């Protein structure tokens, strides 16, 4: 089975190529949908097969590298030889990521058949989605940094293409460009980190680099640089402070895209990358602190913005940023397993929430403002119930998936050697806000009075959309049981499964398993309480005493305005970075340097050569005798020169 690993990647590539080339002539949505989803489904089935084989073998035999072909191989230089292969690495972490990507991806593909029905670019949408799966699998399966970077850039490209999918509208194009440009800043960090890794370790292969890193001792400056630059890449791709600004705008794309790329898979690439490089981070504790601080700060910061947004997808977008913050918090306190666990559960419930919001938007005829919804419960029963499951899962109500993963992170943030009560407090603060805004979202959308026009008759989405919702709801409900902690008599299967990956890092950080202590139960109770409390407050504010929210907004109008305008971060970035660059480019670099100096010198040299040519062309008379005269004159000069030389 493992030998077939490249097929995992090649199925979606084949789908992309076929749909991209033959799509315009197919004219059959069903066929396009079946091919598009089928290719991802095949990958998922193959990944399941590989997982079965891995489960049947001993933990130390679960890792394999399948090399496809050498990609770059150069001769030995001063830095040593540089060679990179297109090779795929199967291990506990990458197979887990593959299952998430292909599994959730498959469901979202199926959902898209219904959601994108009737769209002019139906075939284009599916070919892009397939390309995305291809790139994402390259990212998670790569056995070296360069191939990972190829996938990293590939998912960025697909993100760009899909955000701007409805390119006729200007704002989607702007959002796509913003996503791309902001991601470039992070990619710049990734590239620099790769260069440093190559200079330090002489290779880009994970195995070689990690083998060399495992004998280093912590505290080398270069490791801090490498890890911080990698983290800069992660903040771009995974929308963390300060590069998160593209993700809310990315909601301009079709909702399945938001679910697949901007919630479940692509934005978690940064988390995966840090997990993959956990050993490098273990060598730079300073970077771990940075990661934890940024993650915690983002978790709270994005949640506060999410409190007041009225666009259903924007709320989910800020929620995604916030949840990604939790994952980075987990990475930062060296709870790598917990972070990956949360990545998985988040993929389930956030994909579910986005797809649910897509069904709502679909039913409301492209209306996204939750203030103009309400009472949809009876029109969209399936969507309602699945959405509620997703909401309670993210809020952290046991026994839904989010409870186990988030609680694990909060506990580690408190108890780990790298954690502190401050980090825990920030996490808890984020958790209560998460519960609140999710409650607000559910109550405003589905409960209460209908606030939309009577000419609108919302109806439930077709089967292709509701079935994926139900499957994801089941996963969101039970997904957490993969990681039930020991304190709750579970076995924490997922962290156990991932142990071989993170053992070197844990060993480096001298992390040992703690015994169960009473404080864990206390914190667990606290987090359940704040989740319930948040939902309760939302219930009070938006259902029981409906005027209360507006009164509060009026009372704290200044804060409310700041939150509504997202802390004016976009405006600050515009004023401090974007506009100066635009001004400098426009006024000086373009009109000054480019047109005057560069164009001037190029045009000038062309004109000069033209002038010389038109002067010289008079010499070319076409009369052979003139040429002969010059020829003889040349002889005279050469002979004369030789004569002068001989004296």
């Amino acid at each position: 089975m493992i030998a077939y690993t490249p097929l995992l990647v090649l199925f979606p590539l084949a789908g992309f190529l076929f749909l991209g080339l033959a799509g315009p002539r197919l004219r059959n949505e069903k066929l396009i949908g079946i091919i598009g989803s089928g290719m991802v489904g095949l990958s998922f089935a193959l990944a399941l097969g590989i997982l079965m084989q891995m489960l049947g073998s001993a933990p130390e035999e679960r890792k394999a590298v399948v090399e496809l072909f050498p990609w770059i191989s150069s001769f030995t230089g001063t830095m040593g030889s540089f060679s990179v292969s297109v090779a795929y690495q199967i291990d506990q972490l990458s197979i887990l990521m593959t299952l998430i990507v292909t599994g959730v991806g498959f469901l979202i593909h199926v959902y898209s058949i219904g959601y994108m029905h009737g769209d002019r670019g139906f075939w284009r949408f599916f070919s892009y989605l397939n390309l995305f799966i291809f790139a994402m699998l390259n990212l998670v399966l790569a056995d070296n940094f360069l191939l990972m970077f190829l996938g990293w850039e590939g998912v960025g490209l697909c993100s760009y293409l899909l955000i701007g999918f409805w390119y006729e509208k200007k704002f989607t194009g702007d959002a796509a460009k913003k996503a791309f440009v902001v991601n470039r800043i992070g990619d710049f960090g990734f590239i620099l980190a790769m260069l440093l890794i190559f200079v330090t370790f002489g290779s880009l292969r994970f195995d070689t680099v990690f083998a060399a890193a495992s004998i280093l001792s912590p505290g080398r400056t270069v490791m801090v640089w490498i890890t911080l630059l990698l983290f800069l890449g992660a903040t771009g791709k995974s929308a963390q402070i300060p590069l998160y600004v593209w993700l809310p705008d990315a909601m301009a794309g079709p909702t399945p895209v938001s679910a697949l790329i901007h919630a479940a898979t692509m934005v978690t690439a940064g988390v995966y990358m840090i997990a993959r490089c956990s050993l490098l981070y273990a060598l730079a504790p300073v970077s771990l602190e940075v990661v934890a601080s940024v993650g915690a700060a983002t978790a709270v910061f994005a949640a506060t913005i999410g409190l007041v947004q009225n666009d259903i997808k924007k709320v989910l977008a800020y929620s995604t940023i916030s949840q990604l913050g939790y994952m980075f918090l987990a990475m930062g306190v060296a709870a790598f397993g917990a972070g990956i666990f949360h990545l998985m559960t988040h993929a389930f419930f956030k994909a579910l929430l986005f797809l649910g919001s897509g069904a709502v938007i679909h039913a409301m005829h492209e209306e996204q403002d939750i203030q103009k919804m309400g009472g949809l419960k009876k029109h969209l029963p399936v969507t309602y119930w699945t959405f509620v499951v997703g909401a309670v899962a993210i809020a952290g109500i046991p026994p839904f998936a989010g409870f186990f993963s988030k609680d694990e992170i909060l506990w580690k943030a408190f108890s780990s050697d790298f954690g502190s009560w401050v980090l825990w407090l920030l996490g808890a603060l984020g958790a209560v806000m998460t519960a609140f805004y999710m409650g607000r979202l559910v109550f405003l959308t589905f409960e209460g009075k209908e606030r939309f026009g009577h000419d609108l008759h919302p109806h439930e989405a077709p089967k292709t959309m509701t079935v994926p919702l139900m499957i994801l709801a089941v996963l969101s409900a039970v997904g957490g049981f993969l990681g039930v902690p020991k304190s709750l008599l579970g076995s924490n299967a997922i962290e156990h499964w991932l142990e071989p990956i993170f053992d070197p890092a844990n060993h480096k950080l001298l992390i040992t398993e703690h015994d169960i202590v009473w404080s864990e139960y206390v914190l667990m109770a606290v987090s359940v309480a704040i989740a319930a409390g948040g939902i309760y407050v939302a219930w009070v504010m938006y259902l029981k005493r409906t005027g209360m929210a507006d009164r509060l907004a009026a009372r704290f109008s200044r804060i409310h305005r700041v939150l509504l305008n997202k802390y004016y971060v976009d405006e600050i970035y515009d004023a401090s970075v974007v506009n100066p660059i635009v001004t400098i480019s426009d006024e000086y670099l373009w009109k000054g340097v480019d047109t005057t100096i560069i164009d001037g010198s190029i045009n000038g040299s062309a004109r000069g050569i033209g002038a010389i040519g038109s002067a010289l062309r008079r010499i070319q008379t076409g009369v052979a005798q003139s040429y002969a005269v010059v020829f003889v004159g040349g002889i005279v000069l050469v002979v004369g020169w030789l004569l002068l030389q001989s004296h």
Partner: protein
Amino acid sequence: MTLESILFIVFAAVGLASALLLVTRRNPIISALYLILNFFALAGLYLTLHAQFIAVIQILVYAGAIMVLFVFVIMLLNLRDERSLREGLSWKKVFAAGVSFGLLMEVIYILMTSASGMTELLPAKATEIGTVEAIGSRLFTRFLFPFEVTSVLLTAAIVGAILLAKKKLD
């Protein structure tokens, strides 16, 4: 003054005069006749160098064959009265003449300043190498291959000349 010197001076004077007249006459037929005279003077000079074979060939091939071809073409084209060919004096020509005169001065300077060391002509030896026998054995031994290749060259020239001079070039 020896007979040898007298013969050299006479032939050299005839050669130079006929060469000058060749390039200055307007009518090509007159030029051609002066060229023939020049060839005879050269043949005479070859004889003073005891190169009998070359002297004979010079008259046979050059003055006989090649010059007949020239005269034939001149008459065929009937160029005698062409007005456009009236040649005036122009700066270009003065410059060209100056250039070639400069070259002549350089060559003479080189010849006068460098001692060749071969002032003595050995008549016995010179007679020996100028015979048909001597040159023939040279051509058929050491220069056999170039000699045979010459026939290819001449064939090519014949074919080329016919092709070029045909009425329809295309």
